[in-house]
């Protein structure tokens, strides 16, 4: 089953609630602290504690743990949450600083390092580092790998913030349950960062492959075929993996996410992608035999997540067809009958580079699949109304959408406004930055 919205909310709300309760109890336990408490100080203290907890959750997400991915409905959504948590944490840190101004009356000691006590200096350095690294996430012109190289050091401001939190307030030091609670988050966040930054490359779910073939499908679309050198990766159609090409000229040693377009019954992995940046363009020129590290599989965009539905509508926008290609390839052997409508939406005829492959796979699929190639230059932008007009009533169908974020979200909204429950609509959103 798919992750529940309640679980998603509780996974964030519960830690914050416990933090609030324990902070409140720390005040009740210390009469002096209670008397000294002002609304501004309360905001500063709770905001600071919240920021540490949210940053720790954000770091836990970066471990790509299956458990965390399951809670948030996929790695794409987990990383979107990671980004949102970072933004909220930054806002809370600003609130923490602003709320402390009446208390300290010296703004300079709050934001300029080495102008006050050591723990204030630690706090202000954490603020500057966190702000600098956080703001870079919004600078779209920054090369991806440069951004990744800087962003991965986000654990340092987190650890500095944790040290500051433990040193700065008597709330944490003076009240055992709150101290233990915050220590747990500090350790969890710290360990998560150390694991992801220093250990994951060697100890993560890595499989060794070599490039077997690279095929130009036209329209800047490529198929990358990889052959295992040792153990092959098992995966479900619809999932994706991070790949890292080793020692290849023009290809920096960095991990990029790609969706499988092959059937898991095949020994080789096939990734299909559109060359939209420097890395994906260079990948089309990779030499056969190049070593590739494949990390994964990840993602929740699988038929398994919608197992209770035997009738499905698949909607692909452009290269968003990739996970459906994997599902279609698996269809020839899975003995798992479904009724499926597949819409392959492309802007123009020449963009439909997988049309022939889809037609061939539909004819040999176990499931009964009605295939519609939707060329928007001829038929207009694909919409929920247009889809329902083609399919007829689909009240007992589940809907899977993969394509550009704007298209996927618009279609989801349209289906929801047509009375479809959001739990019956699944969409994939690749935004790891």
């Amino acid at each position: 089953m798919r992750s529940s919205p309640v679980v998603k909310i509780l996974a964030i709300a519960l830690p914050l609630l416990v933090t609030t309760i324990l902070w409140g109890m720390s005040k009740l336990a210390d009469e002096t602290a209670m008397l000294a408490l002002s609304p501004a100080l309360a905001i500063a203290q709770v905001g600071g504690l919240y920021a540490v907890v949210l940053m720790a959750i954000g770091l836990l997400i970066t471990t790509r743990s299956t458990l965390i991915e399951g809670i948030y409905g996929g790695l794409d959504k987990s990383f979107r949450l990671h980004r949102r948590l970072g933004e909220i944490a930054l806002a809370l840190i600003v609130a923490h600083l602003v709320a402390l101004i009446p208390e300290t009356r010296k703004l300079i000691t709050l934001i300029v390092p080495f102008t006050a006590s050591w723990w204030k200096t630690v706090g202000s350095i954490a603020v500057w580092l966190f702000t600098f690294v956080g703001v870079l996430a919004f600078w779209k012109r920054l090369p991806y790998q440069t951004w990744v190289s800087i962003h991965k050091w986000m654990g340092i401001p987190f650890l500095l913030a944790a040290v500051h939190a433990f040193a700065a307030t008597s709330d944490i030091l003076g009240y055992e349950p709150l101290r233990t609670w915050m220590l747990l988050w500090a350790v969890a966040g710290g360990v998560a960062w150390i694991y992801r930054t220093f250990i994951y490359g060697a100890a993560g779910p890595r499989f060794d492959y070599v490039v077997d073939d690279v095929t130009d499908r036209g329209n800047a679309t490529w198929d990358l075929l990889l052959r295992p050198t040792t153990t092959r990766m098992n995966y479900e159609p619809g999932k994706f993996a991070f790949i890292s090409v080793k020692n290849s000229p023009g290809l920096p040693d960095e991990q990029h996410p790609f969706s499988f377009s092959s059937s898991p019954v095949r020994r080789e992995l096939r990734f299909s992608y559109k060359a939209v940046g420097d890395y994906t363009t260079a990948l089309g020129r990779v030499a056969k035999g190049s070593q590739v590290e494949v990390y994964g599989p990840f993602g929740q965009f699988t038929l398994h997540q919608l197992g209770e539905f035997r009738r499905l509508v698949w909607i692909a926008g452009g290269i968003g067809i990739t996970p459906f290609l994997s599902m279609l390839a698996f269809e020839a052997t899975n003995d798992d009958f479904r009724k499926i409508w597949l819409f392959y939406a492309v802007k123009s005829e020449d963009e439909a580079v997988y049309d022939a492959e889809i037609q061939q796979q539909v004819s040999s699929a176990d499931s009964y699949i009605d295939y519609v190639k939707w060329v928007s230059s001829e038929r207009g932008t694909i919409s929920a109304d247009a889809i329902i007009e083609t399919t007829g009533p689909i009240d007992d169908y589940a809907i899977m959408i993969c394509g550009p974020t704007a298209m996927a979200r618009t279609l989801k909204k349209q289906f929801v406004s047509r009375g479809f429950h959001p739990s019956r609509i699944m969409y994939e959103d690749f935004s790891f930055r």
Partner: protein
Amino acid sequence: LELLADEVDGITVVTIRGRVDSTTSPALEERLLGALQSPDARLVADMSGVEYLSSAGLRVMLVAMQQARKAGARLVLHGLTSRVREVFEISGFISILPVCASREEALAKMAS
């Protein structure tokens, strides 16, 4: 796939056993269409031995029904296993294809 043909009171009964998928469906299509060429053809397809039916098998059934209508012949299915019935229900073919609950019912329907 195993196909056995029998005649019962002038009605052709084709018993289908095994898997009907993209590999085996051409043989089934050939047999069913071959038996549905003349206007007086009456065909009962006994599907009680079908272990699995894929979309290719469904298409054969659809083509056979269209051929029967075109030729003025008659086609009735019976003996759907729970797995095959599920495939018919999910695809919506259960409301398109003539399905009887038993061999007796299918033969009686043909005789009427």
